[in-house]
Every structure is written in C-alpha cells, then in structure tokens.
C-alpha cells in the first residue's frame, strides 16, 4: 500500500459513517505491515461501534502479525471491554510463536486478571514451553483463579506425573472448592496412573 492509500484508509476507518466502508478499510489495511497502521487499528478496536468492523480489525491485525501487533494486543488485555480482551487473547493465540516472549512477561504481571488472560493464551499454544510455564503458574501463582485456569489448560496439555503432582499440590495449597473441581476434571483428562 502507498502512503496516500494508507492515509485514506485510516481516515475511512476512523470517520466514515457507513459500516461497510469502515469494514472494507480495516480489511484493506491488512495489506500494510507499518507500525503506524497497527497503532491505528489497535486504537480503533475499543471505540469502534460496529462488531462487524471490530471483527475486520481483528482479522487485519492477525494478518499483519508483526511484533507491534503482539505488543498492542498485550496492552488491549487491560481493556474494560470483554470483547476487546478476548479478541486480544485470540490474536496472541493465533500469532503463537511471535507472542511467546510477551506472554511470558505477562505471566509475571502484577494484575491477576492480566495473568489469567495470559494463561488463556498459553492454553492454545502448541509449543512445549507452554506446558512448563503452565506448571509453574499452577505451582507458584498466588491467585486461585489464575491457578484454576492454568489447571484447566494443563489438563489438556500435561502428560507427565509431575503435572499431576503439581495440580494436586495446588489443591492442597488453596483448599478452594472450584479449584478442587477444576483439578478433578483436569486429572481425569490427563488419565490417572
């Protein structure tokens, strides 16, 4: 895309009254890898009134798929809007390898809600490190909801005896009924030895 085209598409995305025009502009912006375009798309996502245009923005961000997209999505995880947070999780999941470093950082975030969303991203990844990180979250995280989410993911992805022991230790540590339930389901999925 030429600079003038990008400028015109961004104007359309931000200002055009017709949903279909904004939607098309969002999809067309996927043809640019420019960091400025990523900033504009990510900035528009939370304030765009049309869900269809929002979905086009998500599609464009996935298609662009650069490190800038990952960074902007990390920021969007803190949005007040559940749709935006979930969209950011989904983009990070799809971008997978490119997301790894950022997700690892988010697992250490002071905000438990952000850590929980980072765990949700981990739950869809296909790299073996994800299991290691999930196990660490189950063993170390101080927030029971974060641990329960990690336990759920580990139920699908874990395989080793160590994973089972880590889950059982977390149940002992928190004495929380929901975590106990999540652990039971996860252990069943992992298969008892």
């Amino acid at each position, binding site marked *: 895309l030429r600079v003038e085209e990008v400028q015109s598409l961004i104007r359309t995305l931000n200002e055009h009254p017709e949903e279909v025009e904004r939607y*098309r502009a969002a999809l067309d912006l996927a043809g640019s890898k420019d960091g400025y375009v990523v900033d504009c798309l990510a900035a528009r996502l939370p304030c765009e009134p049309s869900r*269809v245009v929002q979905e086009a923005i998500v599609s464009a961000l*996935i298609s662009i798929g650069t490190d800038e997209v990952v960074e902007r999505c990390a920021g969007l995880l803190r949005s007040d809007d559940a749709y935006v947070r979930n969209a950011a999780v989904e983009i990070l999941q799809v971008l997978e390898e490119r997301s790894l470093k950022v997700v690892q950082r988010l697992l250490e975030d002071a905000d438990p809600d952000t850590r929980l969303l980072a765990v949700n991203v981990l739950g869809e990844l296909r*790299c073996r490190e994800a299991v290691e990180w999930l196990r660490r979250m189950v063993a170390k995280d101080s927030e029971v909801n974060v641990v329960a989410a990690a336990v759920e993911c580990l139920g*699908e992805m874990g395989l080793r005896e160590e994973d089972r022991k880590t889950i059982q230790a977390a149940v002992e540590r928190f004495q929380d009924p929901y975590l106990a339930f999540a652990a039971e389901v996860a252990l069943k999925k992992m298969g008892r030895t």
Partner: protein
Amino acid sequence: MRLEDFIKLRDYVYRKSGVYFDENKLYYVEKRVEARMKATGHDDFRTYFAWMRFDTSGREFQELMNLLTVNETYFFREYHQLKCFAEEVIPEILGNKNGAAPRRLRVWSAGCSTGEEAYTLAIILKEMTGDSVPWEVYATDINTEVLELAKVGVYERRAVREVPEVYLARYFQPVGEQFKVVPELRHRVKFYHLNLLDRDGMRAMKDFDAIFCRNVLIYFDDASRREVALYFYEALRPGGYIFLGHSESMSRITPIFKLKKFREAIIYQK
C-alpha cells in the same frame, strides 16, 4: 477409548474447528482416532493426542479432521436443513417483499465440489417458487477439476439415492447406470472457480439471500475461517442466511451473525 479421552479430544476439536461430536459419537470418533494412531505409530491415546496437539505444522490435526468429517456428497444431504430452507426461509424471503415487484432470489453454494448441493438448491428453488420469482444459484469451488464434473452433471446412483422419485423423474435423465441433470437445471446453476480467501473475488459476490457453506470451513485455520466468514457477511443481503454443516458452529468463528431458530433447524443470519 475412555470417555475422558473422548471428551478431551472432543473439546479440543470443537475449539479448533467448531465441529462438535456428541457422546453418542464416541464409537465413530474412536475408530477414526485408532486409524490415525495406527498410521502414525502410536499405541496409546494420550501420547497420540499430545503429539497431535503440539504438532506445530498442524498437519496431523488436519489429517484427523479429514477422517472425522469424511462425508461423501450427495443430493438432498442434511435433509432437515434443506426442508428448513424450502419451507421456512424461502417463504420468509418472498414474504419480505412488502408488495414490491418480485426480485431475484440469489443463493450461493460455496465449496460446491461436484455440484450435488448446488443442483439440489436449484431443484428446491424451482419447486418452491414455481418459477414465479426469478432465482439463480451460484456455485463456486477452488478445485477446477470438480467444477468441470459439476458442469457435466452426471452422477452415480448412490449420489441421487435421497432424491424423491418425483424429482428424479423430473430433473434427471438416465444415462446407462448413471443420472444426468436435465439441461434446464444445468443452465440455471452458474459454476465459477473461486478461492474463498481471494478478497477481490469474494467482494464480487454480493446480494445473496442465502449461502450454503457446509463442511467447508473446517478445512481452514482459525484466522482464515474468520476472514471467510467476514466475506460471507458482506456477500449477504441484510437478513440473509448462512447454512453451515449441522455439527459446525459459526459462533466459534465470529459473533457477527445472529442465530435464528426455525422449526427444522437453527440457522445463522446477517
């Protein structure tokens, strides 16, 4: 296969593809998983699942999906959906004209393969409208070889086994052991080569009342599936319908379509 193993696989397949298997499909799934385990040298479900789950190429997942969703295509397949289209959707669309002159009904069979679905839709439209309303069926596929076969319109007996006798007599000519779609119907279905991810090609598809894309999106990855769903949205008229396979879920792909409950089926609507 233990129930826990089935649920673990079922949940994963649903998240990744939108295809859902009830517990009464355990045996069906088990047989296919066993076939894939044998083909890949795994004798234990858990190690096979982990291997498939962490295969970054996604190839094994696709192989498994191909086996789980293998379906020969035939006329009047998923009859309850077609009944819904014929008896509920078409009258609703025609009833929405508000006294205006009849407009052209436009239906698209996306991923039409050898044309069975497209011709089925043509039969339904002809029967339901009595040609009192102009209608057209567009049928597209990425594979040019299947499109050539579709245009010829000759089918084995098993492909027409669900066609009601009266329609078989009306819309097919026997050719030896096979059945050829009558010229009138063949001329009214427009077959085109189209990649569902080709933005320009998809934008040329517009003003459809209904799109049938059954058991096609399962072969796309998450990102592509959303992109195709967005193109479908744009291609539909306001209030238009999209028909997916009975075990597929659009809600797993994008929230932009509404669910509409009919007597015979639940259909996604723009």
